[in-house]
C-alpha cells in the first residue's frame, strides 16, 4: 500500500465550478468538499488565478468496503483579463464550497451615457 503511494503521484481533482457576474462582481464557486480553511492556496500570478485545495480527509484508517470518493488535491486555474481588479479578491468557504469574489475595475465597467 505504502509502496504504491510512493510511485503514484497524487491525483489532481478538477472541482466543479460555476461562474457568474452580478453588478460588477464576478463570483466563482467551486465544489471542494473535504478541504479545510487551512488547506487552501489561492494566488494570483500575473494573469493567472490558481486555486489549490489539499484534501486530507479522504484517507481513513481501516479497510475500505466501498471507495468512490476521489483523493488528491483540487486544482483549478483561471486566466484573468485586464478588466479584473487584482487587489480586490475575496474568498470564503462554506459547506465545502469555495466562493471567490473578483471585482471588475471601475474603468472597465460599461458607462451609461445620458442623452441630452
Amino acid at each position, binding site marked *: 500500500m505504502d509502496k504504491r503511494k510512493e510511485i503514484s503521484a497524487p491525483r489532481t481533482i*478538477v472541482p*466543479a465550478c460555476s461562474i457568474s457576474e452580478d453588478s460588477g462582481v464576478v463570483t466563482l464557486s467551486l465544489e471542494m468538499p473535504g478541504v*479545510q480553511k487551512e488547506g487552501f492556496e489561492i494566488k494570483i500570478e500575473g494573469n493567472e488565478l490558481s486555486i489549490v485545495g489539499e484534501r486530507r480527509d479522504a484517507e481513513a484508517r481501516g479497510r475500505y468496503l466501498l471507495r468512490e*470518493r476521489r483523493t488528491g488535491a483540487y486544482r483549478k486555474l483561471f486566466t484573468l483579463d485586464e478588466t479584473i481588479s487584482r487587489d480586490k479578491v475575496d474568498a470564503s468557504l462554506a459547506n465545502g464550497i469555495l466562493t471567490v469574489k473578483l471585482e471588475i475595475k471601475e474603468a472597465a465597467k460599461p458607462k451609461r451615457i445620458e442623452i441630452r
Partner: protein
Amino acid sequence: MELMKWERPAPTDLWEAFDGLRGEMDRALDLFRVPDAAGLFDRTTAPAVDVVETEDEFLVYADLPGVDKGDLELSVTGSLVSIKGEKKAERESDKRKVFRKETWKGAFSRTIVLPAQADPEKVSAELRDGVLAVRVAKREEAKARTIAVKAD
C-alpha cells in the same frame, strides 16, 4: 542489433482495437479540464460514498458540498444507512449573468447496506466542510476480543 521502424502491430482481435481506441479517447478527455466525479450530482444524483471498516466501527463518508445541515436527513434502519437531502440554489438576482454552471442543485438520496455487525443504536454523524461522516458502532458481540490465556 539492428534498428527497425516501429509499427503498431495489427490488432488480432477486433475488440482489442476498440479497447485501444477507448483508451486513447479517455486520455484525450483527461487533457480537457473537465471536472471529475467530485461534484455532488456527477454520479446519477447520488453522492460519492466511502465505507470504511475499522476494528470497532463502520465509517461512512459522503461528499455533500453545498448542503446545509438542515436540508440533510440521515436515517439508520437495521443495517441500512440512508442519506437524503436537498441542495438548495444560491440566492439569485435578476441582474446576475451566468457564464458557466457546473454545480447543481436538487434532491438526492443514497442508501448503503452495512454488514450485519453494525449496531443501529450507536450512530453519530457530523457534517463538516461538505463531507458527511457517519459512525456506526459494531455490535459488542461482533467486536474482536482478546482472550487472556491462563497458565498454571
